[in-house]
């Protein structure tokens, strides 16, 4: 464990969770620096929610450890740790106002001014019972409760689910503001554009494992896609699939796409030697990186194969 990891706001090491024969989380490790925003990406069933539940003691991990500021989770830590689950676990029979009062009485750090501000920002009627609120309004209430206690650590599972684009933007702004104020944020989202905008670091989960993680800017700089078009069928290019820089190769008719990570020049040269009619080396956005990382079972396209990352 590095010194940096040891002092991380959140340190997850070898986390595993199985349900019967299903391995929901499989040896997951990552760390989140204090004051940073960490995005957890993954397809449905990748294990993101289970990871959060295991981290917060809501589910028993089969293996691994989770430390918050170097300490194992204790109940008292929730004084400054907020969790917003994917499905807001609010009490249907209570009103929004009663939930706020419940939070006020439960958390010493609860700030009614923040709560009031967020109620107005999201524009939901706190006098209504939860069962009368829309899905988006329930999410807004859950987020209000989470941010109103001025947490030092926020774990948000799909925080924008059900919210309209305006309120989704508000959530992003809240996260960025909170991180700027020193809070550590770990969140998951299917909205890759939001993750790209807000997160400093990401981890991409697939089948319970982190298949790729790192600094967002660094990943974008490292990850390239080389696109080559040939006159006829894509020829066999020796050594391409074995190249450690190659993450994934797709062949679709006359089009060859090679996703490379770091040092793609050699790969481009190899492709160039096969005399394509055109050759382009492009930067990848986070969505490309995500799709390349999770492989072809999500987006099948022609003859495709993924290469494990070194």
């Amino acid at each position: 464990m590095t010194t940096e990891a040891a002092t991380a706001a959140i340190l997850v090491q070898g986390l595993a969770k199985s349900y019967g024969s299903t391995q929901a989380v499989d040896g997951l490790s990552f760390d989140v620096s204090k004051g940073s925003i960490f995005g957890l990406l993954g397809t449905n069933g990748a294990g993101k929610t289970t990871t959060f539940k295991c981290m917060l003691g809501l589910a028993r991990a089969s293996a691994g450890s989770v430390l918050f500021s170097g300490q194992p989770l204790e109940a008292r830590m929730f004084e400054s740790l907020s969790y917003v689950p994917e499905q807001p676990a609010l009490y249907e029979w209570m009103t929004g106002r009663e939930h706020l009062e419940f939070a006020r009485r439960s958390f010493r750090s609860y700030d009614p001014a923040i709560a009031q501000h967020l109620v107005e920002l999201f524009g939901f009627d706190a006098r209504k019972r939860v069962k009368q609120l829309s899905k988006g309004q329930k999410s807004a209430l859950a987020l209000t409760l989470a941010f109103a206690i001025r947490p030092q650590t926020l774990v948000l599972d799909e925080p924008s689910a059900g919210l309209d684009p305006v309120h989704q933007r508000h959530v992003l702004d809240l996260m960025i503001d909170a991180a700027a104020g020193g809070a550590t944020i770990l969140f998951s989202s299917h909205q890759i554009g939001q993750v790209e905008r807000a997160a400093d670091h990401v981890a991409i989960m697939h089948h319970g494992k982190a298949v790729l993680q790192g600094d967002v800017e660094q990943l974008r700089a490292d990850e390239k896609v080389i696109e080559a078009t040939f006159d006829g069928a894509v020829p066999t290019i020796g050594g391409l699939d074995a190249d450690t820089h190659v993450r994934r190769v797709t062949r679709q008719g006359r089009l060859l796409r090679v996703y490379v990570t770091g040092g793609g020049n050699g790969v481009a040269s190899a492709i160039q030697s096969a005399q394509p009619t055109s050759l382009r080396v492009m930067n990848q956005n986070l969505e490309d990186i995500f799709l390349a990382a999770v492989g072809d079972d999500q987006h099948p396209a022609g003859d495709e194969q993924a290469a494990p990352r070194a």
Partner: protein
Amino acid sequence: MYYKEFLRVRKIFTGFAICLVALFVLILVFSGHVSGSVGESARVPHGAVVASAAQTDAGHGPSAGIQIQGESDKAPIEILFAIAGFAAAIFGMVIGCALASENAGHLEVAWTRPASRVGYGLRVTLVDAIGIVTMFAFVLALSAALITIKGWWPDIHTDAASVPLAARLFAFPFAWYGLVAALTASLRGGAGLVAGLSWPVASIAIVLEKLHPQSILGKILTVVNAINPLLYVSFSDTESTASSAIRALVSGQVAAIAALACIAVFGVAVSLLQWRRLEA
């Protein structure tokens, strides 16, 4: 931290109170004159509940229990406690599903508070206990008000056995609460069904044990009925059932109260053990 629990109990209590007040108003309006009517109007639905003419109570001699139809034409004061006890037991049955309702999609809220799980569960239990006491007192007061308004007090009598019997009926709803809590704590859905079925199942268990005391079923039910709160507030004229040993054991009021208290405490303990091990 008690806010939500009080809110929950208060809301359920309010619903109960409205129904009970409506019921008592109906009784007030439609009940007849005092003479010969108290025993009938105040008869508890479970007829076996409060008749203990054959009960022997150490220190009190025979006939120490409640008598609806005894040698006296007067109704025992315990009838009020029986009504209060059963109303509070039904109330306890409803609020006894509290941990199960947390398990039905709210653990992410309940377990992300700066409080231990056992502490949270104990708080739920404490508030529920206060709710049961309040419901018991409320029904008792309502019954007393009805009797006062109708001028039935001269037809109510008390004796030395009234106090321990009242205590037994006071303990009864807590036992029912503990039983329901233990049965439902780990359920995600269907807790209400289990709680609702607990009454007929408990009643049938006692009847079947009485009908088939020597059969295997009867012997099994003898064991099962040891944790059946109804056993400790129900009496029959004869002691011919297989549970006579238990009944003899609990024939003393103190033993019965202790048995009910044990069911309550162990029920809550079992529910908390389950609660600690749940997963969201």
